[in-house]
């Protein structure tokens, strides 16, 4: 299947500062693709390059199976990290404008706008200026503006940051609908938990490099074949001294253990009982957090 969005060895530097050193990624159709990494990893720069807001220094970006054109960009719904609306425009004028810059005609889009406003309970506010709306309402207008032109690809930079819980729920609903329609979503986040719940595919970015890219389940299977949950009493810190242990996250008597791929679980258990009172030892999926830490360490 042709990826709906593909980046190959994309790089961007501002003078001496390298924001994105080398990122390659491929977004399959009908998926929610998470761009993960800590703040400052290069997520926003990557997204801005996809949107052609900042031109890349080198590397290729293909959208919908061909090198990106400005018409392609109009078929993308983009929500930047820093959001904003024209404060003195009415809700309806604002949405019409956002649809028009994406190549739609006013007459065609008006019924859609009304439907959307009904859905998010903003219909009575249609003729009000944006500055008269509460922050939560403005967020709704922004969300509608992002999806109004029925883009085939959504690109969202930290979409959940700053959203109130109701709008987070609304957004999540929207993303699921999108995926169900076979469309794709790329979202960046530094929240691993959220990505784990939402994304099918992920790309981990650290210091401007993509360190891991692929289907989340596959990645978990590949990397996390050796992940265990341990409940035990004793000096749990000692676990970290075992040579086959890559990571040991200890929390209230529960240890999330990640072993080297070539290590054997039962072997580790045998060594463990020598100094611990083990109550439970079972294989489980690793958490994204663990995978991320491992990937960053492996890349270094």
């Amino acid at each position: 299947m042709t990826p709906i969005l593909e980046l190959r060895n994309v790089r961007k530097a501002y003078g001496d500062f390298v924001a994105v050193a080398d990122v390659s990624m491929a977004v399959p159709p009908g998926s929610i693709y998470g761009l993960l990494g800590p703040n400052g990893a290069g997520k926003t720069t990557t997204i801005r390059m996809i949107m052609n807001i900042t031109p890349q220094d080198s590397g290729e970006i293909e959208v919908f199976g061909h090198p990106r054109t400005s018409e392609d960009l109009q078929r993308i719904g983009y929500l930047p990290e820093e959001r904003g609306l024209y404060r003195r425009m009415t809700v309806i004028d604002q949405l019409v404008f956002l649809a028009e810059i994406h190549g739609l005609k006013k007459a065609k889009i008006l019924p859609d706008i009304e439907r959307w406003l009904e859905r998010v309970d903003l219909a009575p506010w249609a003729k009000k200026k944006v500055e008269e709306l509460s922050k939560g309402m403005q967020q709704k207008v922004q969300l509608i503006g992002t999806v109004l032109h029925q883009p085939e690809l959504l690109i969202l930079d930290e979409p959940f940051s700053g959203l109130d819980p109701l709008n987070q729920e609304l957004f999540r609903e929207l993303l699921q609908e999108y995926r169900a329609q076979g469309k794709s979503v790329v979202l960046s986040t530094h929240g691993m938990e959220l990505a784990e719940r939402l994304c099918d595919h992920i790309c981990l970015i650290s210091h401007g490099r993509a360190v891991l890219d692929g289907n989340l389940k596959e990645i978990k299977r590949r990397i996390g074949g050796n992940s265990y949950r341990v409940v035990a009493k004793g000096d749990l810190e000692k676990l970290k001294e075992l040579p086959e242990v890559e990571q040991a996250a200890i929390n209230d008597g529960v240890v999330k253990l990640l072993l080297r791929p070539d290590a054997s679980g039962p072997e580790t258990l045998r060594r463990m009982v020598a100094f611990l009172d083990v109550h439970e030892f079972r294989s489980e999926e690793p958490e994204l957090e663990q995978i991320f830490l491992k990937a960053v360490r492996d890349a270094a």
Partner: protein
Amino acid sequence: MRLENVVVVTKREYLQRVRSKGFWVGTLILPVFVLAVTLLPSLLIAKSETRQSIVVVDETGKVAGPFAARANARAGQAPAAGKQREMQATFDVKVEPPAADRQAQRADLDRRLLRKEIDAWVWIDPGVFADKPVEYHARSVSNVFTQESLRDDLSWVVRRVRLEQAGIDPERAEELTRSVRLDTRRVSEKGSRAEGGAAGIFFPLGLFMMLYVSMLLWGQQVMNGVLEEKGSRVIEVVISAVTAFELMMGKLVGICLVGLTQLGIWLGTVAVLTAPGIVASLALMPKGSALPTLTAPVLIHFILLFILGFFAFATIYAAIGASFNNLQEAQQAASVAAVFIVTPVLVMWPILNDSTSRMATILSLIPLFTPLLMPLRIVIEMPPAWQIALAYLLTIGFVVTMVWFCSKIYRVGILMYGKKPTFKEIWKWTRYA
């Protein structure tokens, strides 16, 4: 550049502004304000007839009598109909003879002055017929118009006495030394016609001010608009769908159209007001003279040069708006840009006086000044065609260069947040790919 994107942005910029109350208030209030500023002061002074009670002590015995008669006669008179009311003060004159003790009399007059029994006192020395000045004592001496009247009246009397002493009949002398009047007529291809001297200045001046105000006002609106997009962060969504250049052009064209709409309203008003009959019926014009009227060529040049001038200045403002984070930061750079618009105002008067001088020609060919100075020359006297053509050519070249240059700053600047950039940094932006 995709035209449909520019059109979408243009439409937003235009409708948002024209639909706002501020636009209509500004459009209606500005002419009222300009009229008030130019006409009101003279009207106010003319209306504020000052009536001063003054005491005249005349040591010559020849001046006070005729002076009092002249001043008191005028006080009872209404100004002649149709004649422009001059700024004249009226005096209640009381003549008092010089006392034996001059010092005591002066002290007494000062006392009465301070008790506000009188407004001023005047002492006429015997040497007045030679060159001695007349003393004027008052609580305030800033009343220049009153003093002017007093001086005129006294001079009139003193002159007559001098003439008599020289054996010349004052009536005859007055008759023979009357000033000549100028009957001004403007000659153009359509023949000559009488135009009021004052109107001859006010008309080009009014059009010039209109252009000036529009360019300054709407140029700054471009800057404010860019700052607003940047400040509200809406810019990033917009710039993902349309290019920075499309957005800038859309904004410039949209706001230019708003300016033209406003100018259209103002010029329409001028056209109606200067139509034959209207102003005359308002009795503002001397009989037998006509106002200059807007002709089609003047109007066309006016509009074309407004568009060019707007683009020359507004692109600079767009780049400034994009470079900074807020109005405070942008103010300094904006005032530098304003210098280019203000300079033509400084050199306007010599051009009004002689629009064909070499200086006028050269200045009006400098692209930054052309949009304001060329219309001024055109409205006064149509310059040779080659000069107009050259001015257009130079200005168009300048505008294209400005748009090209400023769009580079604009493109980088609109996405720059954080610390206020230095001019050196902004210069660097222009060299980004």
